[in-house]
């Protein structure tokens, strides 16, 4: 606990709420979400489709406006208006990897431009030669051939396209990488390759990750800490092993029970837990964000906290 407090906090999300207008009605895709990410860790955000994961990541990237709350990167607010040099530093040091490699590359631009786009934006090279060299080096880093630079995205497979997307982020020499379900649109056979690449890069480039996924099995091995998000609210947050050993919130338990087991016998007899939100009784007293064990947080009211801790 005490050791943890000394770690440098890279990103801090404080009471973030993002509202969308649906016709006249307003709804909160992200509702009062708080967490922080330490430098050097892999922090995973897990939740089902529509739970607001992409919205969180886009709010961090400044694509969606925060309706309430604040986002701090290295202690400076990045959710409001930034000065020119702040924005420049932020855009260079925080990069994003996208979910759908088919949609996230400009079909009419060559790989050379796609990978160099950020360099052009901030003039991060002295001459054409230096830029070309940077592109070449980065393509190699992600396991692609340098002469792919002269081709168009439609000439590549999904896994290769995702590598191009990673190169586009990596060339900026970022410190913090937001990866929004970077493998869920890929063929099962190449998912491991991309995960391994991300892990390798993390070590080589000293990166910090916010890794978004929709099932827990993917993130178990790569994450230091995991947050579980349900309908725009984070319901549980703990270190990876702790969360798997001692899940508290019934939604987390449901997610855990959905992970397929390697042994077919136990898989068959497994008890699939289905989360039923009506078990909560939040009408009178709304739940609060409580620290059930050191570093293990859960959204619960007092009665539930007591009950869950006793089991």
């Amino acid at each position, binding site marked *: 606990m005490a050791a943890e407090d000394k770690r440098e906090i890279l990103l801090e999300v404080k009471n973030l709420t993002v509202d969308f207008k649906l016709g006249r009605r307003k709804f909160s895709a992200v509702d009062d979400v708080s967490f922080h990410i330490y430098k050097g860790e892999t922090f995973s955000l897990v939740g089902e489709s529509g739970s607001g994961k992409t919205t969180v990541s886009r709010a961090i990237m400044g*694509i969606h406006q925060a309706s309430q709350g604040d986002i701090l990167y290295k202690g400076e607010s990045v959710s409001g208006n930034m000065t020119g040099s702040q924005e420049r530093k932020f*855009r260079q040091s925080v990069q994003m990897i*996208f979910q759908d490699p088919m949609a996230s590359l400009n*079909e*009419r631009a060559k790989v050379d431009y796609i990978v160099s786009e950020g360099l052009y*934006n901030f003039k991060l090279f002295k001459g054409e030669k230096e830029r070309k060299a940077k592109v070449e080096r980065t393509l190699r880093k992600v396991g*692609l*051939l340098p002469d792919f630079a002269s081709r168009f995205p*439609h000439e590549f497979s999904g896994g290769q396209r995702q590598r191009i997307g990673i190169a*586009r982020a990596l060339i900026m020499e970022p410190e913090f990488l937001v990866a929004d379900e970077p493998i869920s649109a890929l063929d099962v056979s190449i998912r491991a390759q991309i995960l391994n690449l991300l892990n390798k890069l993390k070590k080589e480039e000293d990166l910090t990750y916010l890794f978004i996924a929709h099932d827990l099995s993917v993130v178990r091995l790569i994450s230091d800490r995991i947050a579980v998000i349900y309908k725009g609210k984070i319901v549980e947050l703990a270190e990876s092993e702790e969360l798997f050993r001692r899940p508290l919130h019934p939604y987390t338990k449901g997610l855990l029970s959905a992970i397929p087991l390697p042994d077919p016998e136990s898989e068959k007899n497994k008890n699939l837990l289905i989360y039923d939100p009506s078990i909560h009784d939040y009408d009178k007293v709304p739940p609060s964000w409580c620290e059930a064990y050191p570093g293990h947080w859960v959204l619960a009211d007092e009665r539930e906290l007591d009950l869950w801790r006793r089991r």
Partner: protein
Amino acid sequence: MSDDAFTFAPWNPEAAEETGYSHYSYWRSTFRTFIKNRLSLTLLIIMGVLVLFSLLYPVLASVDPNKVALDSSLWNRRPDFAHIFGTDGLGRDIWARTWYGTRTSILLAFTIAFFDVGIGVVAGALWGYVRKSDQIMTEIYNVITNIPSTVYLILLSYIMKPGFWTIVIAMSSRGWITIARFIRNKVISLRESEYNVASRCLGTPLNRILGKNIIPFLVSIIIMQTALTIPYSIGAEVFLGFIGLGLPLDTVSLGNMVNQGRSNFMLYPFQLTWPTVILAVITVSFYIVGNKFADASDPKNHL
């Protein structure tokens, strides 16, 4: 079999990436799909020949389209060897006048298309991309499109001196908005796609987002809109000429010819027929070619 008959090829992860490479090219496929259709190919050739011929006619032939015959026996001649399309009420050669007229109309139409499409594309791209502009642009669109185009054309032609640029201004001041609307709708569908979000995450400035991420995807719409604006503008010039508000009478244009041919139509129908036939061929082929190109530019129709 000895062990050294086969050796292991060294594993090279980079070489493995060489697979998954196809030779699909958007423009080549678009072009192939387009010329696969006999009708569009034929019309494209006819269109090209007509446009080229009318543009080059003053160089190829030395007949003066404004040369008036003093001898009244040369007036209103039916088509014969000397005058393939006959002559008009002042003895001017209709064949020469038809090509000069087509030339004027085509130059006019190209100019209008240039402004319509140029302004329309830039305005439409901004309209679609800059969210704040949507409300005001929609208002402008409603105001402009709610004025009937004929009323607007006639009004402006009355106010300003008849002439080439009057028609260009009258047409372009109105025509750009429909093109802008088309472009806006396409841009809105593009702006939410992930590659644009990626550019925004990288801090790409708006001008390069428009130039690199948006406009290249609009090329097929732009070509189609240009192809459709041209026959429409030629038609509008003819319409203005027909009601006497077109180009000055001493300018040879299809509009003026149709106007003069109309007054003599009962006696000398050929004076109206030939300019109209050329007009119809050009208009229809531009229109069909534009539409066929739009079909061909849709990757779903690619072979």
